[in-house]
């Protein structure tokens, strides 16, 4: 697909190529803004400098015209990426780096290898493509099967009645009301483990201009998981089976605008409005019906009676007999709902922050239920993690390679983990110089990883200088050879001092991201809670280096920031002492050895444990414990009842890697 013959852009905008068009196309070619999938941190971890290549990074696909896909795209991200693509205004392009196959996405317009030189070439190619083919009268419209939305018909009274054809409800005889849902219903919620998650936010946009594209194809959010768009979700947990399509008959007039809200369960609506507590259905119905006919006609009451029953089935709110009161009771509406911490109940809006959220690592799917701008509930998961560790089993020769591929954010640590576990299983020993070189590589990765985290964190907290400088240092470190590391260490030290002197930084971060359950934490998160936990303490190689972990008090985002900076500097010191940054080679010579082995490596995020059995050159993982898997459980405690920005800072400060988590 990449070998498209002529220089046409798949995502061209439908327009005749006039002189004006050519002018605009040329301008577009010189103004490329990129939305990076899975995320800019992956590009950085792979040593790519997108800015240097001339791409402007955009926080939302709406402002971008190039979708940059870095490396292999895991299954869970393909649909979100395709959604992001549909949400980019045309002309748009896909730039794939390193891997091509990204199924719901169209084939890449430009495909290059994963390195800086190739990236530069790719951007140049992209510019040519834009200059020549940004406007095309015959541009195809992009339509991914999974994204096509489909109109289905539901009964306003009985949400369980959903049919493909317009007809009447078998239970009450009312006309069914159309609503939109995704065709790919098979990708339901259970599949993604997301409970009531839906594409709440960023709904599709109607291409209102000049395109013949099926607007239904755009009916999905980019940040959210484009799963099934049915709205009967999450019933058990929130007792909201009383969802009713509120955008019924009388609802369509544009003049009264907002076709969603409480009386609206349409997944196609912007806000995912959820009822909490046990009496969802009822109030909806009253609202729906209570409009015009209340004061005038009698039959309305009868309807209400009907509905009361309907509601009660779902909610069991016995006393709810306001059919003849003529208005919706706010008291009853708010009665059973969970209270906000400040006692002021606001509507709960479920908002996805991920898997492609610019401030968080790509692939981390976070869903906040917002109560105003306070996070009331949190669901955290990973869209990119492995389905199961079993996928990593296999021949021992390539085992290290496979485990290293697990997490693009810290591949070396996992390679090392694999090697050590295999060696322990086979009873092999590593000589001293090798071990030292490994330490050098591991510590360099630690420093780079911390700087990479810092770049993303700086972006999240709106501290551009920090983000930029951290990125520069990280990229320089990845490209540095052994001699240059010393220079980088000095720069990191200066950087640290500068960060410590930054006004307002402490005020912003102190107290944010406290972990209520520190016992579950490992790595820097635990160490900033004053715990001296570090797998490196037990390693012999570190003894002569005089290793002492960076332990800080504070247990908040600021302490974590300082600790990571200090660790980065410390690690660079070890790299200097180790005298080399060579990556550890392939697995040692193991000839059909069998046995059980276990190893622990202090990855940049904390200790990862691996236990495996080796049998005739085949590896079977019996246990793999990663720091992010442990930390993912901390997210709720860090975010709930926090202001949105604080919650995000808290999550980011944990430095989660969604890649090393089982979905």
């Amino acid at each position: 697909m990449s070998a498209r013959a002529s220089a046409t852009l798949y995502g061209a905008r439908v327009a005749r190529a006039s002189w004006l068009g050519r002018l605009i196309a040329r301008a577009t070619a010189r103004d490329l803004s990129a939305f990076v999938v899975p995320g800019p941190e992956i590009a950085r971890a792979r040593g790519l400098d997108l800015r240097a290549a001339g791409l402007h990074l955009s926080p939302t696909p709406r402002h971008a015209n190039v979708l940059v896909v870095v490396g292999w795209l895991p299954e869970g991200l393909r649909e979100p990426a395709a959604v992001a693509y549909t949400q980019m205004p045309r002309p748009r392009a896909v730039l794939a780096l390193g891997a091509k196959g990204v199924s719901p996405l169209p084939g890449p317009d430009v495909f290059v290898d994963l390195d800086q030189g190739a990236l530069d070439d790719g951007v140049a190619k992209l510019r040519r493509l834009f200059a020549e083919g940004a406007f095309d009268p015959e541009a195809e419209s992009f339509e991914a099967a999974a994204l096509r939305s489909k109109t289905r018909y539901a009964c306003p009274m009985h949400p369980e009645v959903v049919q493909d054809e317009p007809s009447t409800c078998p239970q009450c005889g009312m006309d069914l009301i159309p609503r939109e849902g995704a065709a790919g219903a098979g990708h339901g919620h259970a599949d993604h483990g997301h409970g009531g998650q839906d594409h709440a936010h960023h709904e599709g946009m109607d291409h209102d201009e000049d395109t013949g594209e099926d607007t239904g194809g755009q009916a999905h959010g980019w940040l959210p998981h484009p799963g099934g768009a049915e709205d009967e979700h999450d019933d058990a947990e929130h007792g909201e089976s009383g969802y009713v399509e509120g955008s019924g008959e009388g609802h369509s007039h544009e003049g009264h605008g907002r076709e969603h809200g409480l009386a609206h369960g349409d997944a196609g609506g912007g806000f995912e409005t959820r009822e909490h507590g046990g009496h969802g259905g009822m109030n909806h119905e009253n609202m729906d019906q209570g409009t015009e006919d209340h004061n005038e006609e009698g039959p309305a009451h009868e309807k209400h009676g009907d509905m009361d029953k309907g509601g009660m089935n779902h909610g069991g709110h016995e006393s709810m007999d306001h059919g003849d009161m003529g208005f919706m009771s706010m008291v009853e509406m708010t009665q059973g709902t969970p209270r906000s911490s400040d006692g002021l109940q606001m509507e709960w809006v479920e908002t996805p922050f991920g898997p492609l959220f610019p401030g968080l690592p790509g692939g981390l799917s976070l869903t906040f239920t917002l109560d105003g701008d306070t996070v009331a509930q949190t669901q955290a998961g990973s869209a990119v993690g492995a389905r199961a560790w079993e996928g990593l089993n296999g021949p021992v020769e390539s085992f290290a390679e496979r485990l290293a591929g697990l997490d693009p954010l810290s591949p070396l640590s996992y390679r090392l983990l694999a090697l050590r576990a295999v060696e322990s299983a086979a009873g092999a020993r590593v000589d001293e110089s090798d071990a030292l070189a490994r330490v050098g590589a591991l510590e360099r990765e630690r420093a780079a990883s911390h700087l990479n985290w810092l770049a993303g964190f700086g972006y999240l907290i709106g501290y551009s200088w920090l983000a930029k400088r951290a990125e520069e240092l990280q990229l320089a470190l990845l490209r540095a050879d052994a001699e240059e590391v010393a220079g980088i260490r000095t720069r990191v030290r200066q950087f640290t001092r500068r960060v410590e002197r930054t006004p307002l930084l402490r005020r912003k971060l102190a107290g944010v991201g406290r972990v209520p359950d520190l016992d579950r934490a490992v790595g820097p998160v635990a160490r900033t809670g004053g715990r001296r936990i570090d797998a490196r303490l037990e390693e012999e190689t570190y003894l002569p280096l005089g290793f002492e972990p960076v332990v800080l008090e504070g247990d908040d985002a600021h302490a974590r920031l300082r600790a990571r900076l200090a660790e980065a500097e410390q690690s660079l010191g070890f790299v200097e002492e180790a005298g080399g940054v060579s990556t550890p080679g392939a697995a040692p010579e193991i000839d059909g050895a069998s046995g059980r082995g276990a190893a622990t490596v202090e990855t940049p995020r904390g200790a990862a444990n691996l236990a495996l059995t080796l049998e005739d050159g085949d590896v079977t993982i019996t246990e793999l414990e990663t720091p992010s898997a442990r930390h993912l459980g901390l997210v709720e405690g860090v975010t709930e009842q926090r202001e949105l920005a604080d919650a995000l800072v808290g999550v980011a400060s944990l430095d989660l890697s969604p890649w090393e988590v089982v979905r």
Partner: protein
Amino acid sequence: MPLYVALLVGAIMFGIGLYGALSQTNLVMIMMGVEVMLGGALVNLVAFWRFLHPTVYPGQTFFLIIMTVMALDMAVGFGVGTARFRARGSVEAEEAGELKG
């Protein structure tokens, strides 16, 4: 002539505000009605100042005081509203039965 235009506008605004304040069930909407009524009063005030006594400034002072009253009405209204919302979860007038004397 312009005086009558202003008075007409003032009167209609007052009528709309009165209707709103009486018909709405929600506290905030009731307050909006009151604001519309006060707006009508403001129009009259400015018109009287401009067309009847343009050199007498207490008219403008009175305007400022009405504006203060509007702000005050907001402050007190929302204070009470928030307290009620906290206590009862509603700011519907229909549900404020216990406020009856």
